[in-house]
């Protein structure tokens, strides 16, 4: 199959079941890769670094702070 034929095939409805199968297996693997996490900025496990209590769980400053009756103190 030439590249053109391959492109035509992949764009056709006949390829849908194949692509669905690739997606259903491939996407869960892809989103579980540490390399992908690093590229997106997702941290993965946090225990070895002591969690986020002292590492920015509440560092959002572009909105007002909730009132003191809505949330407890930072321990």
């Amino acid at each position, binding site marked *: 199959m030439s590249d053109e034929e391959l492109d035509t095939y992949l764009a056709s409805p006949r390829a849908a079941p194949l692509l669905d199968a690739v997606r259903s297996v491939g996407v869960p693997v892809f989103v579980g890769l540490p390399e992908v996490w690093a590229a997106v900025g997702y941290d993965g496990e946090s225990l070895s670094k002591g969690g*986020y209590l002292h590492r*920015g769980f509440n560092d959002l400053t572009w909105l007002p702070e*909730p009132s003191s009756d809505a949330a407890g103190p930072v321990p």
Partner: protein
Amino acid sequence: MSRIDLRDDRVVVIIGSGAGGGTLANELCQRGVRCVVLEAGPRLSFADFEQDEFAMARKLVPADGPEVTSRAPLNQSRPYVCRAVGGTTIHWSGIALRLQESELRARTTYGPIAGANLIDWPVSSSELAPYYERAEDKLGVTGTHGIPLLPANNNFKVFYNGAKQLGYRRVTTGRLAINSRPRDGRPGCLQLGFCLQGCKIGAKWSTLYTEIVKAEATGRLDLRPRCTALQIQHDKRGRVSGVLYADAAGRLEVQKAHVVCVAANAVESSRLLLNSASSRYPDGMANSSGQVGRNYMTHSHSFVMARMPKPVHAWRGTIQAGLLEDERRHDEARGFASGYLLQTIAFGLPFTVLAMKPGAWGKELADFMRSYPRLAGLVILGEDLPQAGNRVTLSKQGKDRFGMPVASIYREHHPNDRALLQHAIQRATELYKGVGAEEVHVQDAAGSTHNMGTNRMSASPRDGVVNSWGQTHDITNLFVADGSQFSSSGAANPTLTIVALAVRQAQYIARQLGARAL
């Protein structure tokens, strides 16, 4: 830990060790009652918990679970039920809310609704209040017993500001069975994230390291992990006499029993009763009403996530510390019965993609993943009306590894659930748009991990399976101690109610045993 003889017929046998079974075992042991707990899953330790969503799903959720079918397309996979000591209290997010009087009186409050099989609970909020009180103390629920609320994390800050500009008033970090400071031998929350994968430090309550351990300390508990209950047996008089189970090596054993309590999570509990059919009980055990398996409820449940203009890093911290209660009320002006909660939620990247963008591909997937650090998220949790046709039956083909039929779940949405979710999605979208959301993603009617009904509580033996004590209407020494007892779902996460009912049931069983009435 004590070892109880298989032929000892003076014991209480409890099937399941989660919120219902684990609590019931401890409460009975504390009252001097010896218990055998049969738990199908293994006993995990903190070291077994992994901060990895896929790895923990593989460890906790059985592969030979129920089948799910529907006439209409249903955005729901298999129920997420944990098979391990501690059950689904390993996975739960810790939200601990009481049912309201209006929800317990569902039929009276909402009136007749076509297609809904509504009844009132045979127990009132004032009867439940002391048990809720006890349950909140046991779990260490924030906002009760002088326990501070958890601090505001970034996801909550977006949620809170969005809610306030809509005029909502009841917005807090919520009632959580997660220590905001050390309590009951457990540490305070370190904002680890990964609450759903088993709390690595035990700041979140689970029966695994609270109730079960306390019960063992009495010397009256014989906990048997990797022991799968297959059938409940009865004697010639029709009274329950023991439980047939497969042990860790796959050997079949029978544990004799004076009382049996089923607490295997709603779907598995009704399956066990159906699998216990005999010549005396041809339609399954405790099923003279035909209600076993019926009125299966989850919750009306949709995820709403918003791409904000700046980073949120919602996964950093307690994953569900945000609660909006203003819409939890029955108000016919909104066009549906009952109400809903909005609760913040954040998953890791893998679950976020799979929950919000199943089937996405190419640019759509890439754009969504790139936006992940800027996502704020919530889940809608609304009442799900009971319907007789939403039910658990025994699969005709599927069998577990012991040859017992697996559960087959049939479920479809009631029009009320659709109207409720439509309203809630609209409000949630406005909430985020009001604080600058650039794009709002909705995953509508996503399956929740709550399983309720299928052995419901009723005043009349015609309408349900158990009475207000969780005792089956048909067989005095057979009880149900999990969410399958729920007469209706309310708009509250079920665990606190399961715990409160287990405390109440333990008190009842101990008294009845003392009076030789069981």
